[in-house]
């Protein structure tokens, strides 16, 4: 019955093709993620101490990729919502919903590791540095997005409302970055941003890139798992309504 109602199926379509593909992709994506992560960790362990920061530079290999993923996840949410609204493909809404908590966790990791990295250098747990502040604002953008999903019971409205917020939020991210950087120069005109990465010669660059790829695949793997869950929950909602 559902398939015949085109507006409804535009929201609740049952992506059989996708679920078969996802099931096939699930194990490979996870194994690649874990393998690259293991390689990354191995390379990180072999890194010499940085002449400036000593051993704490190793925190960079977790902090920076996490910050990358925090931004990447939000772009993923934006494009998934775009696919859902423009191409009217309902899977987009579910993919955006699946990715949000993963993005939020990476943002949290970036914040905590940023504070842990800052502590030995400046003796304080939190410093209102431009990059860390932007990441903090990004965390609240995620929390707002997730809260909107949870607050609206009707799936149709939730999907449309959250896609609007995803678009507005996406436009806002670079503006926040720009304003926070300007704000940072306002209050510390002279000093270069304290988070200037140490001279990135090969010893540091390659492990960082490998860890970055590892975090990317971790993000894709977890999101793929959550997306399958969301699709099954959707199917559950449809089945329960038909009893």
């Amino acid at each position: 019955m559902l398939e015949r109602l085109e507006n409804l199926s535009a929201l609740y379509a049952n992506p059989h093709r996708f679920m078969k593909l996802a099931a096939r992709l699930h194990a490979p994506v996870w194994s690649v993620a874990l393998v690259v992560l293991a390689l990354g960790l191995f390379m990180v362990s072999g890194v010499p101490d940085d002449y400036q920061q000593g051993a704490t530079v190793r925190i960079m290999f977790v902090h920076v990729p996490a910050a990358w993923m925090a931004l990447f996840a939000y772009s993923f949410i934006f494009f998934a919502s775009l696919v859902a609204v423009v191409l009217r493909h309902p899977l987009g809404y579910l993919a955006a919903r699946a990715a949000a908590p993963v993005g939020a966790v990476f943002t949290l990791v970036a914040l905590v590791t940023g504070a842990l990295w800052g502590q030995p250098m400046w003796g304080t747990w939190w410093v209102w540095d431009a990059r860390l502040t932007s990441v903090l604002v990004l965390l609240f953008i995620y929390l707002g997005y997730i809260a909107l999903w949870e607050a609206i019971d009707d799936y149709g409205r939730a999907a449309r409302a959250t896609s609007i917020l995803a678009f507005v939020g996406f436009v806002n991210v670079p503006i926040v970055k720009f304003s926070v950087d300007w704000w940072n120069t306002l209050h510390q005109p002279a000093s270069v941003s304290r988070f200037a990465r140490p001279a990135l010669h090969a010893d540091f660059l390659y492990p960082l890139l490998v860890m970055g790829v590892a975090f990317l695949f971790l993000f894709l793997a977890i999101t793929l798992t959550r997306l399958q869950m969301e699709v099954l929950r959707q199917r559950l909602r449809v089945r329960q309504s038909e009893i």
Partner: protein
Amino acid sequence: MSGRHILQALFARELRLVLRGGHLMPVIAFVFICVMLMPFGLGPELSLLQRLAPGLLWVIMLMAILLSLDRMFQADFEDGGLDQLMLLPVALEGAIMAKISAHFVGILMPVLATMPLAGLLLNIRPDTVMPMLAALLAGAPALVMLGAIGAALAVGVRRAGLLTVLIVTPLYVPVIVFGAGALARSLAAPGTLDVAAIAVLGLISAASIFLAPPAIAAALRAGLR
């Protein structure tokens, strides 16, 4: 009779509703309550308060706007006014602009007018009052338009007020950065006006006046049932 004429009537009605509904007083009371709390929290030392005054007034202004926004669409949602608003033979974005303008004139302008007085309580330097008003005026439209997006998304939802604040706060960060930032400069260098920052504020406000209504209309349509 053109759509414009309908929008004027809508603006007049909404303004009358805002003034009669007694929405203004609680917001002004909120501003002065916050201002009064500051010395208790930060200590009565005048030079400290003077340095913090512009930033504090900006944050208080922002929260006052958030407070006043909560009822903008919720009231119409509950009494069926939203249905009638959507059936007006005029673009929904226009009707939304009329409604928000009435809200701005009826609540925000008076609150802005009281800001210098609130500033006095924080021993604000007289020569920084004008820059503060300029920055507040340049930034307030953005605060109202962006806040209205959050209010529209959350209309009719459980704990809509809290959700609106959570959704809107990240949108407010650039506005408060340039708003309070503009004042910090004029505080540091007396008599000067940080034109660049206020220009950016005006830019953000102009952009939000054009980009927010479609988002608000879409958010209200999403909530139809």
